[in-house]
């Protein structure tokens, strides 16, 4: 077995060309999924393209009133960006539930997204927050909603030669708040059995004017449950509205049974977690 070639391009164009030249090439950002898959022989790429040497790939910058997060930015760095952590605490917390501290010092949200695990912790939070993803490829760049990057377990929608350049989050809306929670048997170092994200906007009276509810680990991809959000809009997040929202989540959840949980448990927990994230998001929105 020959060792894979290792490339560290310095421009987006070089990286894209290297990826386009070799269908077996894989992108390396943090490597916390890639290296594990290599060592367990689940994948055997003939080339690895490290994107960390590309200028702008690591770090967070202000963009269009919101945030642009370079694809190679490690999760722990998100916590250090006070503006980001204040604007989108749910996203930052979700990214900092992945693995352990050591893993998060390397792992990136872009990698978490492209690895396309249905249980990826940062993805429901990004989807709820309305994040978009800037993708570069041989034919230029395109921007897509975060929810459209994955198509199934381990499968993403990136075309041959494409890779994620940055993740973009909008400005936090007036009266906005977001949150993410997951259910795991332990307290940390685990994979979500169910995950739920919420991003709300409340007006001055406390009435919900916008709600995006997402769920993870209960379908082949992270789901944005529009009916759940719709159940909250116009309400003051009273118990009846919350129950309608949770029911919409339970209806949308189509989990499998596996070693991490039963179908029944995952569906029930999707509803429980959705209510809990909405409550946290509400508290944050009220403080906004």
């Amino acid at each position, binding site marked *: *077995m020959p060792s894979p070639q290792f490339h560290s391009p310095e421009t987006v164009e070089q990286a894209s060309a290297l990826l386009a030249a070799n269908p077996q090439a894989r992108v390396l950002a943090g490597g916390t999924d890639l290296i594990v898959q290599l060592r367990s022989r689940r994948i055997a790429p003939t080339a690895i393209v490290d994107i960390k040497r590309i200028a702008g790939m690591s770090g967070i910058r202000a963009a269009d009133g919101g945030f642009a997060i370079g694809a190679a930015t490690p999760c722990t760095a998100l916590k250090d960006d006070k503006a980001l952590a204040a604007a989108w605490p749910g996203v930052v917390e979700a990214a900092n539930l992945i693995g352990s501290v050591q893993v998060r010092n390397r792992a990136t949200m872009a990698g978490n997204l492209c690895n396309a695990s249905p249980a990826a912790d940062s993805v429901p939070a990004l989807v709820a927050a309305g994040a978009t993803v800037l993708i570069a490829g041989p034919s230029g760049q395109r921007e897509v909603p975060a929810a459209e990057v994955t198509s199934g377990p381990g499968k993403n929608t990136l075309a041959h030669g494409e890779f994620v350049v940055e993740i973009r989050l909008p400005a936090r809306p007036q009266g906005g708040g977001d949150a993410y929670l997951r*259910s795991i*048997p*332990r*307290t*940390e*170092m*685990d*994979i979500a*059995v169910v995950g739920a994200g919420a991003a709300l906007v409340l007006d001055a009276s406390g009435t919900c004017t916008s709600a995006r509810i997402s769920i993870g680990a209960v379908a082949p991809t992270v789901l944005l449950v529009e009916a759940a959000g719709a159940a909250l809009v116009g309400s003051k997040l009273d118990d009846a509205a919350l129950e309608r929202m949770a029911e919409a989540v339970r209806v949308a959840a189509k989990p499998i049974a596996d*070693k*991490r*949980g*039963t179908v*029944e*448990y995952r569906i*029930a*927990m999707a509803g*429980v977690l959705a209510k809990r994230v909405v409550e946290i998001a509400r508290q944050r929105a009220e403080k906004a």
Partner: protein
Amino acid sequence: MNAPQDKASFKPAYDVVGTRPVRPDGVEKVTGKAIYGTDHVAAGMLHGAILRSPHPHARIRSIDTRKAEALPGVKAVVTGADFPSLASLEVSLGEGSGNIAAISRNCMAHEKVLYDGHAVAAVAATSAVIAEEAAALIEVEYEVLPHVLTIDEALAPGAPVLHEDMFTKGLPEKPAEPSNAALCFTVGRGEPDAAIAAAHTVVSGRYSALAVHQGYIEPHACVASYNADGQVQVWASSQGAFMIRTLCASILGISQADIRVTPLEIGGGFGGKTKVYLEPVAIVLSRKSGRPVRLAMSRADVFRASGPAPGVVADITVGADADGTITGVVMEFKMLSGANPGNDTHSGAMSALAHYNVANCRVTGWDVLCNTAATAAYRAPGAPQTIFPVECCIDEIAQKLGLDPIDIRLKNAARPGDVGIMGMPAGEIGYAECLEAAKAHPHYSAPLGPNQGRGIAGGTWGNYGGPSTATVNLGEDGSVLVTTGSPDIGGSRAAMAMMAAETLEIAYEQVRVTIADTSSIGFSMLTGGSRTTFATGKAVILACEEIIATLRARAAVMWSIDVSQTEWRGGAVHCLSGDKAGTSLTMGQIAAKAGFSGGPIAAEVALNAQGFLPGFGVHICDTEVDPETGHVSVTRYTVVQDVGTAIHPDYVEGQMQGGAAQGIGWALNEGYVYDKAGRMDNPGFLDYRMPVCSDLPMIDTVMVEKPNPAHPFGVKGVGEVPIVPPLGAVANAVSRAIGLRVHDLPLTPDRVYAAMQGKS
């Protein structure tokens, strides 16, 4: 760590015993210099890889190694055909006992593979990458056989049988057909059925727990070097270098004098390193290649092919009088021992009721085989599985009768002089003292919050003594070198140094301890059974006493007086008569001139330590259960244990905390999971969920020090007892928190949630 309890009434004053000095192996370990399994390098060493079966049960039709052998860098490929064919030969090694042929076949499959992960071939090559690549080139033709994974499947009529020559032992008559039941073992006394029929209150239930792994952080690893003259060296991380020597010699037909096993540091064992897996394979690879060979397991290999402790299903009925006196117990349990007969059925049956004085009881254990990894000892092997149902039933009786859960245990507790199930009176055991200490602990009376419950459970383990050898040598400067053959898993170097220092009345720092290879010290049984501080410690103490006698004799020579006119005091010999009366000679002064008084000063003691006593524990566990999700949080935990005399209290408390943490893991989230094809579905720490730090509260410890009269300092053994009570303590706490009992472990969130849904 907690301050030791004031138990002055139990404990004589010592200078060194009971203090908390820095461990002598500490600096080397925390600075990364200590040599563990994969750290050892031999000149010219090759790297090995093992090909493992993907099937849980299959006949090996053929193995074609030609492509692997042709790969550049490959120096040897071996299969079962390279191992001697062995007639059944029993060896007795305590926890590591077993049948040599079965042990050999577990290291390398011969005719059949019996579980996912069973070794079928091995390669030695110039690099680990080449070795792994070569292993993947080995072509094995399997005839896949139907497999069994559970007790019900294994015992079902017509079930596929793992060993066609295995007939259930322990039955009145030899069965006509082979089966997967290796053993039936019953202990009891009195008339339990009649007692239960006449009882005021009866509780019963079927309880289960899954197989769990010992979870040591260091995977198995060794290096073997076979010389052209037939002499072999092995360097390995294990609980017993002599165990490795015995088993490798037996499996491979080599003289024990020709195998020298050097113990490397060990990153945890918990009973799981009382077997050989890699060492015989590495020796055969080295013999074939002519070079030293390293073999090391990955974490997935460790899970699939080593350990675990057996899972259990137990049916139990307990009868009691209105005052809580337990009048009768009938329990039948089945241990799921994996691919080979296990060792936990006897100890499980003997332990189940050993902490209570029950007049009428019958405990029947079955050793059941299935197509999962052959089980190994795990901390008090067998006891957690059988004491868990007992402690749950006692809790239910207490609830039915409105009794305090500690009071009911005190009413039934085994006490010194009580006649045990084997007809022997108990010695100076301390279960009742533990129960009293638990009742007096502030934890027991602390208020509980909403959704919280408090569970109590007791437990016991027999501990052990057995053969050990120790030598003590004096340096010319009077410093003391202690040598043993007992690998140090839990701080035993420190304990040995402390007992030597106490005996010799010198400073702890004046003593250094070495764990020698098997050619440099006499036989010691492996480190296990909570025996080392008791048995090897006793050998060290007696050797130090011989040193004292020798020093007095040498001083008498130097003073030209009779030895009776000398006295040992404060680490020196004092002259009681003659012109030197009133003077003294230190160890250094005598040692420096030893050449003139009779030669080097040394002592060796080899003994079979008798008089070991069982240990007892009582655990208090508070849990909080999330009513919406079924998540169980352990909010407070206290371990009370009769430890005998605590030589080094830090390491005693560490054992108590570590055992409790492992038991809590067994109760809450750990367990082997298999897919439909019979492959282990969680062979890694991600989905095999041992507790992480944030899963556990600070575990409080209370040492009850009731000395063992058969040990010079009162040692009983502490390492195994603390894993016994947590299964019951956690289950009882959860049952009180949610108002119903879940009989099956682990108490995962989905299982607890489903139980709560069933109630409402």
